């Protein structure tokens, strides 16, 4: 279905930019977890970008939603932005968009009041990123034909590849991490200069 109004184009364009921003936000989040760096940039740039790009993404999504609602070619109620499956038009795909957006809002709101929140609660909500992004991608690819062919299909494939690589990198880091109880033994093994005055092979102290 193609609409020819400016609103419809604006909605599609802002949607694409939002998807790219969210991809970047997710990758940056994984980078932070592994204490990685962006070459040439200080550490606070990684955390700062992660935060600011997520807020920018919200701004783009706000325009994306408003433009879609204001477009008169199809009838999309404003509520369907946050209430899943409340739209008559493309009920499933827009519903997924609402879900992704709801999860995003939860993540951002909890992060804004992070200092006052239970640590475990914040983390649990933030882990919903792993749900939110794929759902947002599904919404993007399903709700219009744009991402189903041509350059935009390639772009989507690239986003999937980048996220997959980042997730695998993060999981590899977790797999290599020594559990707390074994950490001291690990460091000691690395710095065991003269074992002469330490523990003998049979475990006794000399």
């Amino acid at each position, binding site marked *: 279905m193609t609409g020819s109004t400016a609103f419809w184009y604006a909605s599609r364009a802002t949607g694409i930019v939002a998807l790219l921003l969210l991809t970047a936000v997710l990758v940056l989040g994984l980078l*932070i977890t592994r*204490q990685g760096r962006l070459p040439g940039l*200080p*550490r*606070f740039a990684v*955390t*700062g970008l992660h935060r600011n790009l997520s807020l920018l993404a919200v701004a783009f999504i706000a325009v994306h939603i408003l433009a879609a609602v204001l477009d008169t070619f199809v009838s999309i109620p404003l509520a369907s932005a946050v209430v899943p499956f409340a739209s008559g038009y493309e009920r499933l795909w827009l519903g997924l968009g609402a879900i992704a957006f709801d999860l995003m809002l939860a993540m951002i709101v909890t992060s804004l009041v*992070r*200092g006052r929140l239970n*640590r475990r609660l*914040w983390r649990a909500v933030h882990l919903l990123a792993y749900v939110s992004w794929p759902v947002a991608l599904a919404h993007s690819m399903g709700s219009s034909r744009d991402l189903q062919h041509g350059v935009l299909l390639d772009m989507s494939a690239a986003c999937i590849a980048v996220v997959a690589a980042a997730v695998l990198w993060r999981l590899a880091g977790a797999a290599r991490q020594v559990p707390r109880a074994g950490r001291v033994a690990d460091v000691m093994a690395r710095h065991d200069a003269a074992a002469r005055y330490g523990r003998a092979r049979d475990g006794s102290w000399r």
Partner: protein
Amino acid sequence: MGGYQARRAQPGTRTLRVDPIQCTGHGVCAELLPELIATDEWGYPVIDPRPVPPALEAEARKTVAACPALALRLVRE
């Protein structure tokens, strides 16, 4: 007990403290507030134990918010 010696501070002033268990040595704090925070040779923060000067209070609050591990705190003595 928290591993820190108690310091007498003026009432109303706040001091930066790090939760050493939550801290994993991201190092963002030392970049944002080098006046009060340095890193040791292992990447962990060494924090000036004196109260935060009023001129740096706002920066200190931003630094606390920026810690990815939420390990930094501003405590009232």
